[in-house]
């Protein structure tokens, strides 16, 4: 069951990664013409991603919380015995970032719902912070999931 949930967690994380990255690029580096892949990528209506990103963030975090005990009992013990403390530390940082990201979601929803000039910098900042959190968490999770292969253990 944990394996199924881990794969589902990873697949939904890929969808979230795509959504938040697309939105972040479109808000930081917008484009008006859709000629070519790069311009078309930047010219999307970034607001349409908000609800999907919030839902995906919450579902991915929830699934991560469900499979977390398996990591804590079996995987972390293995990593500590293998003296892979940087891997353990990376996961600890990921855990804290996800929590901070959950706290940012109401503001993220608000600044995209009410596009006021006063909230423009907050909109860009919150979107970039969530984008960073998702990328960081995805890479750490991916490396830990494949750590025996990465370190030849």
């Amino acid at each position, binding site marked *: 069951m944990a394996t199924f949930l881990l794969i589902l967690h990873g697949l939904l994380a890929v969808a979230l990664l795509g959504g938040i990255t697309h939105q972040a690029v479109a808000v930081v580096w917008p484009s008006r013409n859709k000629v070519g892949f790069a311009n078309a990528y930047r010219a999307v209506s970034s607001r349409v991603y908000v609800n999907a990103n919030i839902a995906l963030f919450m579902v991915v975090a929830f699934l991560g919380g469900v499979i977390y005990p*398996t990591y804590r009992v079996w995987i972390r013990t293995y990593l500590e015995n293998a003296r892979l403390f940087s891997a353990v530390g990376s996961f600890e940082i990921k855990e804290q970032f996800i929590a901070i990201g959950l706290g940012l979601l109401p503001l993220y929803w608000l600044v995209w719902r009410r596009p006021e000039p006063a909230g423009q910098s*907050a909109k860009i900042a919150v979107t970039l912070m969530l984008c960073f959190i998702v990328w960081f968490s995805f890479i750490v999770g991916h490396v830990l999931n494949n750590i025996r292969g990465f370190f030849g253990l």
Partner: protein
Amino acid sequence: MNMIEKLAPVFAAAFAVIYIVSVELNWALFTYHPKIREWGWLVEPSRNGPTMYWYGWLVTSALGAVAVSMLTLPVLKSRPPQYWLGWIVPLIVMVSVFYLFRGFFLR
């Protein structure tokens, strides 16, 4: 909507600060013992195997942030929404996380 607009930045800032303080001082509202699949109130020592406080820290932070948001409402009523507060404070907390967990990378 106007109230939410004023509260959301305060909530984000308060959540991040209370969360990192909860992690450092271990203010977990409950503890999970994953090996025996048991829950306990507040911070408990290990019953058997490792203990998990993350869920407890999240709930502590969420309740604390709601309380702080409500308490600051009278002050915020006459002011425009402080959007900057909602991202600068969490950003500082995120940077501090790297510092607080540096021990894992220095062994």
